[in-house]
């Protein structure tokens, strides 16, 4: 039997808003699903159903109130819902990549270095990391004259492609994708679909949020309906 890369059971999350009189906002509960190597699971459901929150819980960015987020990490299963900060950082360095909707760039850093950084953090030599960053940027149609500029001045679509390059450059076994094609044109959407296919062939387990039906049909091996985890009291 195949070992799941991600094994979530009964995960639960709510926000308590202390500045609004302590009201509790339930987000999701009973979140349970698995993702196998080489599989792309797409989360579906209307806005506000908790799709992004689930991705953030899998990345350890949001804390869980209950349940278990099992992640296959360096030959063991680690429960991210109860991991120490150092363990979460280790999981992010060598197991889980996350392509967020928006690029959070450090001022002054050149685009090619923004993209190469995750490889360098994992010990790849700077020259090789930059070389691979360049290949991805070229594939995503970012003109070479922009590579040495910081991405903060780029258009929304260009920033998103830089973000995708940064997310796809590593050889991590799990990838989380939050609307990776939202502000891209048809040509670049096709490139992203190709990149996802390539990751599947490499055995990467992926969880994605995509609103575009056409893209969803192209990438989804399975769909998990998030409305069944709705926690509305």
């Amino acid at each position: 039997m195949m070992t799941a890369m991600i094994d979530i059971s009964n995960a639960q999350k709510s926000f308590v808003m202390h500045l609004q009189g302590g009201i509790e906002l339930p987000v999701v509960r009973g979140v349970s699903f698995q993702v196998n190597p080489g599989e792309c699971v797409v989360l579906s459901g209307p806005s506000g159903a908790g799709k992004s929150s689930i991705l953030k819980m899998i990345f350890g960015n949001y804390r869980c109130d209950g349940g278990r987020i099992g992640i296959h990490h360096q030959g063991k299963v680690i429960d991210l819902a109860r991991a120490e900060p150092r363990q979460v950082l280790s999981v992010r360095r060598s197991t889980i990549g996350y392509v967020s909707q928006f690029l959070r760039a450090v001022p002054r850093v050149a685009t090619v270095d923004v993209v190469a950084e995750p490889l360098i953090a994992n010990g790849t030599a700077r020259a090789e990391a930059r070389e691979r960053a360049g290949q991805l940027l070229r594939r995503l149609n970012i003109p070479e004259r922009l590579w040495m500029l910081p991405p903060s001045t780029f258009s929304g679509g260009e920033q998103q492609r830089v973000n995708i390059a940064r997310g796809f450059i590593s050889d991590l076994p799990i990838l989380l994708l939050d609307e990776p094609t939202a502000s891209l044109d048809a040509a670049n959407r096709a490139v992203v679909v190709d990149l996802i296919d390539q990751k599947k062939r490499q055995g990467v387990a992926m969880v994605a949020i995509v609103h575009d039906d056409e893209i969803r049909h192209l990438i989804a091996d399975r769909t998990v309906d998030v409305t069944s985890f709705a926690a509305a009291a």
Partner: protein
Amino acid sequence: MAETGNAVQDNDAPLLVADDLSKSYGRLTACRDVSFALYPGEVLAIVGESGSGKSTLLQLLSAQLAPSAGGVSYRMRDGVMRDLASLGEAERRFLFRTDWGYVHQDPAQGLRMAVSAGANVGERLMAVGWNHYGRIRDAASSWLERVEIGIDRIDDEPRTYSGGMRQRLQIARNLVTEPRLVFMDEPTGGLDVSVQARLLDLMRNLVSELGLAAIVVTHDLAVARLLSHRVMVMKGGRVIETGLTDQVLDDPREPYTQLLVSSILPA
């Protein structure tokens, strides 16, 4: 159950351990029951408003203030964990001159304003036994370059420098001895926003290239987000919330942390 995966793989031992640290002045308690472990290469931010006890805590951790209760231990280069209170004078001097750095908010406190920039950097090397003038000057030049100060300014006194340059010089002076731990007290505090971004980017790169551990006191959550792996939120002398930096900032739990996070003005 595969729960064993969560056991912390402790081949790397903590560098510094604070154990129930408290400090009171008469009836006023500035810092109460603070415990944590800092690992090599880890950057910890201590955030909170003025009067929250964060500066007192930094002074306790860096042995500049004696605790009223509790203690701090530090792993010396020989690998032995030592209680800071039990160190002899020579060992303390070794820590302050070599193994630790301390970056003050006001560079004038961490620099000698009336001697040249090169001498400011070289002085720390001489304190650890370097005596070859040419080599000291080479090391100083290469550090000035790393912190983006032109070599043509090496003989100038820091009082002729801008605020941002002084702060970068203070960082060079601290890092030249290859410390394993750097304390920073509001390192971007007195600087213009444009200068802050450059300094933050520089510090972030140096910390990761050198594998430094750092404890950074700041009231600026953006500084904590850019520089630190982990954050401790202080209020009234106590640590009220702690965790991975992005977790605490994106999913704050305590009322006071939620207030801090929601008070950031959008750019």
